[in-house]
């Protein structure tokens, strides 16, 4: 009766080998482009839960980037703390072997001094998306911005707004909106997109602050109704919805939502530049372009490493001044 044991052990060994190959051996890739610096997988950390906008853009881009650089680009979701948790995860990996998605809201927490990492710990790789946000309500609650504003004035501090996280850009825009409308809202942070949407659908909150493109199916089905777009000019397809500039919110507060990739500041510049050009190729692909259109991303979404770094520095200054104005800076 030795045979079965040997067989069982062989099966176990084979299973171990299979696991080892699938989990760590995927980087064995024979057709690497010439001059490639990449010989290990490069993690792409999404600092928010699966199923949201940041997750969608990361998963759409990771395939194409992976083809270009010749190694795997596994997407890992690490949500929490308006993106801090995921960015810290990226920073704790070897520099140049991990990148993460950076969005406006996470940058805002850095500017506010509330993030668990510093601005100079990260380095821009590329911007993938720039897109408009909106305040939206559940169907059959408030017909338009006017009704919502009236209700908010009648119950100051009572209406709940689901946001992506504490001290995010959502909070800045909300503060500006409160000032113009002469009332107060209550921002409730939900780091998981699914929790945010369920909160509006189930009546846990009254308003949702979200990018239009991320909740397109609820907009198309009529479950969510946008009442105010966060934009300088009317948004295509939602021309009849008033924008923040229509109600008198200064242009400097209208911070576009963006999503880009960043690496540790210690990552070699060569790696960053190659990754940046892989991003460009990804953003030029037909499949990615179709995805961008679906989520209302603007035409000038892509920025290379240098442009994105400058953009981030400008936004950081702008957000800092906004935070100071609305008294939201950490002590």
């Amino acid at each position, binding site marked *: 009766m030795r045979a*079965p*044991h040997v067989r*069982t*052990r062989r099966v176990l060994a084979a*299973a171990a080998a*299979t*696991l080892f190959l*699938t*989990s*760590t051996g995927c980087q064995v890739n024979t057709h690497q482009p010439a001059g490639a610096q990449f010989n290990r*997988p490069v*993690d792409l950390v999404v600092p928010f839960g*699966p*199923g949201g906008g940041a*997750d*969608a853009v990361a*998963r*759409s881009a990771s*395939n194409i980037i992976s083809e270009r650089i010749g190694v795997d680009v*596994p*997407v*890992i*979701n690490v*949500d*929490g*703390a*308006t993106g*801090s*948790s995921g960015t*810290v*995860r990226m*920073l*704790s*990996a070897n520099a140049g072997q991990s990148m993460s998605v950076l969005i406006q809201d996470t940058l805002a927490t850095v500017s506010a001094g*509330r*993030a*668990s990492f510093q601005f100079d710990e990260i380095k821009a790789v590329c911007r993938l998306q720039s897109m408009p946000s909106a305040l939206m309500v559940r169907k059959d609650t408030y017909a338009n911005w006017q009704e919502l504003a009236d209700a908010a004035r009648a119950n100051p*501090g009572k209406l709940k707004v689901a946001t992506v996280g*504490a*001290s995010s850009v959502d909070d800045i825009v909300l503060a500006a909106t409160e000032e113009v409308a002469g009332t107060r809202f*209550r921002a*409730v*942070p939900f780091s*998981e997109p*699914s929790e945010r*949407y*369920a*909160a509006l*659908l*189930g*009546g*846990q909150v009254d308003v949702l602050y979200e990018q239009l493109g991320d909740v*397109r*199916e*609820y907009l*198309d*089905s009529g*479950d969510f109704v946008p009442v105010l777009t966060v934009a300088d000019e009317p948004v295509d397809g939602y021309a009849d919805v008033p924008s923040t500039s229509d109600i008198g919110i200064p242009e400097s507060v209208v911070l576009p939502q963006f999503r880009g990739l960043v690496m540790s500041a210690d990552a070699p510049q060569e790696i960053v530049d190659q990754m940046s050009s892989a991003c460009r190729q990804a953003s030029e692909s037909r499949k990615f372009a179709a*995805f961008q259109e*679906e989520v209302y991303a603007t035409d000038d979404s892509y920025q290379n490493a240098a442009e994105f770094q400058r953009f981030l520095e400008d936004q950081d200054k702008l957000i800092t001044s906004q935070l100071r104005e609305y008294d939201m800076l950490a002590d």
Partner: protein
Amino acid sequence: MNTLAGIADTLTSFGPTLWLALVLGVVIGMLVGVLPGLTFVMGLLLILPFTYGMPVDIGVALMVAVYIAGTYGGAITAVLLRIPGTPDQVPLLWDGYEMTRKGRAAEALGWAAVAAFAGGMAAWLLVTFAAKPFATVALNFGPAEYCVIVVLGLTSVLALGERSVAKSLTALMVGMLLATVGVEAVYGTVRFDFGIPILRDGIDYLPAMVGIYALGHVIIRFGAGFAGGVGNQPTRVRTSIPGLSALRRHAGSLSRGVGVGSLMGAVPGAGATVASFLAYGVEKQVGKERHLVGTGSPNGVIAPQAASTATVGGAFIPLLVLGIPGSAATAVILGALLLHNIQPGPQIFAQQPELVYTVMAALLVSVVLMTLFGLLASKPMVRLLRIPEAYVAAVIVLFAYIGAFAIRNSLSDVWIMTIFAVLGYFMQRKGYPLAPLVLGAILGPLAERYFVTAMIASNNDVSVFITRPISAGLIVAWIGVLSFLIYRAVRDARQTSGAATASTTTPVESHDAQPK
């Protein structure tokens, strides 16, 4: 009966590729379930890139199969080798492994398979016939309700250990404290990192679990020279599929497990692990044979396993009906669907009924295949018990290290696992139960996040927990569990003072504190 006809049509139109995908999916799912450190969520993430190139129905069928089989595979190693392949299999160690020690391994495996089958069928029925009303109910749960559910889970772990509530509570608190290391989830404050980069990233419960259970157990057994291990197993093992009368006797446990699992499945962030622990706790408190649970009772295997597998249904419904994933696994499936430009949600039933039918049909086939493979595999698996334990221990160590590294390709997890193995060893030597520590590390952060969110939403008004009807009902249930615990503690204290001789070891401790 349109749905049934649709599913039947879809089933008959399954091509060979789809069948292959289902078989492959079930095998992969059981494999990741068996391997410690690799959960079904990670299994899904690993196959996700491969689904990009597949037609959407095949990709979805594959993922459904991996998901459902992943909730069951770990049962086999949990029962036979005391390795929880996934966190939701931890409760199976208590009664399942105890049954193995008593030479009833085949029976335990049979019950695990039956429970997984019942859980899977319940999931299928729920998705097929009750999706829409169920989704409406799920929407009424907010952060306050989730918070109370998680607290219920935390409390139920105290009910597991019978004797030393103090030691259970200590272990629970240590688990919760360890989980606070790293970035706090709502405001992003870094806690207890002591300036060390690895700690800033937090202590993940997966390497902790693998270290404490798999590696820690090996250290204990190594210390004992592998003496007095698993009792003699019958030489010819038949996985005994329970007969009708036995089924009837344990129907209560089955249905309680299924009920808990279906509800918990819809709670985002909780999922199979919480469901499994809760179901075990329920069994221990209200089950007909509750006094036997913990001493190797089939009910202690049935309830958690049925609950784990039944969560699949609860998790799929919000995904299909609302476009909101009910679990991390369904969130990955959502990601795959999105990449195929399919948005589940309010309109999918009208616009893409074929896809919905494919999900339902794939679910049904996977449940049957999984049960079949489980029954077939357990026969050779039981033979594993006749291999000298030292050899098996070496393989466990290997798997533990591979698993810890595979979690996120990081060596720091390997260190965390090793440290927890040593911690687990000393805890067992001192008679501290391990389950509360692991559960505290898993549920503590969830409880905190839901509590903080509920507080923000209510402007720091604690009364939300009792003014919201569902939350109030859950609070009543929690008070019930708590008073039961106090009652039992008082009663036991009286009994012990009367007859101080009886040293009834608690179920958790009896395995955790192995003979030295």
